[in-house]
């Protein structure tokens, strides 16, 4: 019997003919030179972008899975955020002696945006170690896992927007031209979300203590960053020194460039300067780590 003979027409065993991609030789070599490492890192990002439809589908499936079998599905996200903001808005407006009409829109935008930041740091620090199965079963670009976490959380953010919209309908802010700056701010948020996910994912893959450390840092950040409270509320108290520190809080700048225009504030150049500086540092740091650690990821996870 000739084992190399072509299939004799038996059903169910023939291979379907799909167009083969133009095969190009892939060379994987132990890279000791910086130039090679940088090239492979950018090649990884390029491959991830070519697989964008996969990233998109993976993120959608993630959300679908989380709510599979539930009646409201992903709209539980919307509902639970809405209930929380509704309840907290009235309680904290009383506690801080604020006018509900002014406080509720502030709280709604702050909490929704902070929710995005804190989830992205938590899920980011496990984005590679959690994908160990996929990483060990096939050669995939590692940035794909970071992009997936980023996109998934953008979807979650989109589900929370109706809550902000409803609050704005009840207590409309006075939008100005500054509202246009929401677009570049969102672009910067997306870029930063990817960078922070990749950076924390790499560190978290190597050092398993990172996720809980990140968690506790974010908890402290929640209280020292103006999220539930705004600096204006504390102006009349004698805490000038503590407030000066806010200008150096990386989360404050990021929040302010997106929250300010949504609440009808004028363009805050100081916040933009803060956000751009920290973003530049974050992106450069993230790329440096990736160039250094990319080849080691499968050994770490």
């Amino acid at each position, binding site marked *: 019997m000739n084992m190399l003979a072509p299939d004799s027409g038996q059903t169910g065993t023939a291979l379907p003919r*799909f167009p083969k*991609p133009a095969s190009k030789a892939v*060379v994987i070599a132990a890279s000791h030179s910086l130039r090679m490492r940088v090239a492979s890192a950018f090649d990884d990002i390029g491959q991830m972008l070519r697989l964008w*439809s996969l990233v998109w589908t993976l993120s959608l499936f993630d959300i679908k899975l989380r709510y599979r079998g539930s009646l409201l599905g992903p709209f539980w996200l919307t509902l639970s955020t809405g209930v929380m903001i509704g309840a907290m808005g009235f309680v904290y407006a009383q506690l801080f002696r604020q006018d509900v009409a002014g406080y509720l829109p502030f709280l709604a935008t702050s909490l929704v945006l902070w929710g995005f930041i804190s989830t992205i740091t938590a899920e980011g620090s496990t984005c590679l170690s959690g994908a160990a*199965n996929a990483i060990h079963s096939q050669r995939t670009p590692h940035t794909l896992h970071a992009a997936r976490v980023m996109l998934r959380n953008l979807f979650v953010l989109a589900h929370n927007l109706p809550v902000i919209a409803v609050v704005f309908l009840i207590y409309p802010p006075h939008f100005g031209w500054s509202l246009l700056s929401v677009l570049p701010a969102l672009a910067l948020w997306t870029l930063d979300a990817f960078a922070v996910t990749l950076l924390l994912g790499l560190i978290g893959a190597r050092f398993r203590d990172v996720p809980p450390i990140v968690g506790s840092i974010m908890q402290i950040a929640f209280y020292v960053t103006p999220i539930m409270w705004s600096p204006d509320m504390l102006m009349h108290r004698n805490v000038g020194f503590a407030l000066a520190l806010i200008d150096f809080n990386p989360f404050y700048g990021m929040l302010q460039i997106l929250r300010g225009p949504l609440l009808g504030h004028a363009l805050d150049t100081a916040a933009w300067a803060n956000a751009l500086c920290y973003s530049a540092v974050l992106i450069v740091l993230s790329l440096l780590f990736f160039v250094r650690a990319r080849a080691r990821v499968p050994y770490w996870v």
Partner: protein
Amino acid sequence: MAKLQIENVSVSFPLYHGESRSLKKTVFAAASGRMGQDSKHRITVEALRDVSFALGTGDRLGFIGSNGAGKTTLLRTMAGIYEPVNGKITIEGRVTALLDPGQGMNFELTGNENIRLRALFSGYSEAQIKKLQEDVAQFADLGEFLSLPVRTYSSGMVVRLGFALATAIHPQILLMDEWILAGDAAFLGKARERLETMVGSAEILVLSSHNPAILMQWCNRLIWMEGGRIRMDGAPEEILAAYLPPDQFQQAKAAAEQVAAA
């Protein structure tokens, strides 16, 4: 034309944290005294040491060797998953690796959803995804199960899905670990037919197994791995004769001839 070239490849695992699953495997692999130290004095396990060989169109290579000889690591390295510490791998052609039955599948998702993800990874269009789903459904014989989450499948069904998926996307180079033998007898026959079609249309097959009869039937070249190095490289009969005790070799030969004659 498919080509796979391995030049002076070495792979070593640093021992960072003891809880890593793959690390545990490598610690077991260290039984053969392959602990070393890297330049920063971290303890490492040398999984592969200076391995070189080249494969071309039509080659059907089998790996044999004791547990922890480096077979699976070598397959993973050939798939481009582990990048070597030293040396170079050149791959021409689309590679598919069947390394564990899970196949990086998400067990919470349905069979069809997993097929879609795999197809998107290979850059397929919507029409091609449909076609792939039909083909996998037919070959794996899973029927309505494809619309259920994979976690509800029996382990044999998972293997069938993984195998159908990996071969349906027309790999030019197929790397397989021994778990494929988990399929039932009827499936094994079907799988062999499909692989033969694939190898017949001039592609490369690399198989790691402990079953000499399977290796004799499927391979035209064997590499005997020992302690992360190539111990012997040659024709299946020649290698198996050296590797196996004489009585087991005769048994395996008889079993292989029996299947070939059937």
